[in-house]
């Protein structure tokens, strides 16, 4: 894909069903804008997301991947997001170690009441990924055509 002025990154957002997805809903019903290039995938808990989900998203063409869950301490299943936090911390550190641009991955805790935060998070994340350009280092060439 040629990078032009109008190039828009593809963003995959894994959102926990109980907080962040509801936060996205609230952002929508409050008419807060966030880019349409954000593809939301609803997951039962941020803990459901394993590193393969993240890599798979990049493989299939995502330029940035963000994981949103309940604030630590507020997990619907009480502790899921604590485990997710450790996993993502290690995974992101590994991706940095491999030389993947660090702006392409992010975790943000967004509650059901934080429609504004959701929209702001997405806007800032999309902007950051846009600045980085298309994902080359973690993409599968076969998915490019």
């Amino acid at each position, binding site marked *: 894909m040629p990078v032009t002025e109008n190039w828009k990154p593809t963003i995959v957002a894994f959102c926990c069903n109980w907080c962040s997805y509801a936060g996205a809903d609230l952002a929508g019903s409050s008419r807060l804008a966030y880019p349409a290039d954000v593809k939301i995938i609803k997951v039962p808990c941020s803990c459901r997301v394993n590193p393969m989900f993240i890599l798979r998203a990049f493989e*299939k063409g995502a330029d940035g991947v963000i994981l949103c869950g309940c604030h630590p301490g507020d997990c619907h299943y009480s502790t899921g997001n604590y485990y997710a936090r450790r996993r993502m911390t290690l995974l992101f550190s590994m991706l940095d170690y491999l030389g993947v641009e660090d702006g392409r991955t992010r975790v943000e805790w967004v509650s059901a009441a934080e429609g504004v935060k959701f929209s702001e998070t997405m806007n800032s994340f999309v902007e950051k990924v846009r600045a980085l350009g298309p994902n080359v280092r973690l993409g*599968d060439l*076969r*998915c490019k*055509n």
Partner: protein
Amino acid sequence: MYKIQKADLPKLYASIAAESDLFLPVKVADQTNFGLYTETADVDIDTLKTVKSAKDIFFPQSETLYKVRRENDNFSIDVEQHRTSPFVVFGIRGCDVRAMTVLDKVFLSEPIDSYYAARRQMGTIVSLACGRPDTSCFCKVFGIDCAEPEGDVVTWLVGKVLYWQPKTKKGEALTEKVASLLEKADEAMVESAKNAIRAIVKKLPYANLSLEKWGAAAADANFDSKLWEEMYKPCLACGTCTFVCPTCQCYDIKDYDTGSSVQRYRCWDSCMYSDFTMMAHGNNRTSQMQRFRQRFMHKLAYFPANNQGMFSCVGCGRCVDKCPSHLNIVKVIKAFEKEGV
């Protein structure tokens, strides 16, 4: 017979590469494998054995056969085209050249594998005699002379000079193209180099393995041997032996969903993997012993039975060097030699 100074080889590579793709041993991250020549490639013709054989060039580890797109409920098949441009492979050793003959028996038998056939037709093989055979080499057992390999052009690296002898029409055509870089040479140096190589080969520890217990007759005789049960145990069921082997040709055909189409590709497979023979209703080889046995029986008994006695092993010794558990075909041959059946 022609010659070129070793120091001038980069010119030779560049000259060949200007006209066609050139594959040759290239060092990447401290390991030498066949790769495409580029100006910045770290060409390494001194390493005796590339980790993977040159089989990759004619039968790639992974190649797309066709793409299927679905449009309005209809499938359209986009077939991968055959190779149409000529290419040169430089620096193949005698064992790997013979391995191509083994692969030919499989892929060029009816019905012909057209992708392989196209590459065979387009490829010119420049082989390289082995100056310093290794302990694990046993090509002699299969009647291969690493001092004088087969190939379209045969070369010898003697000291600082590469000697060049075209053997076929393809080889002569290539020689003509690079003639300006070559000078005439007499054969004396090469003859003495050959003698020196053959003298080393005689001293190799595996040079006199006996294949007496193998061949077509072994298909029945060796199958039920108790030796298999004794030998297979350290096998980790990885595919290292298969993937470094120049003659292993089993493949899998798989799908990859790119989102916009399905790519059907074939890739190397290994009879060492448990899912190799796995079907919906079960597996006909349930133990690693059976899988282990299949690999060696195929190479040393079934293949010769179907191909006028030709073994599906060329004695390159890669499996000997690379098996994580130090299991290999030499140990199998020796075990049968010692114990009978």
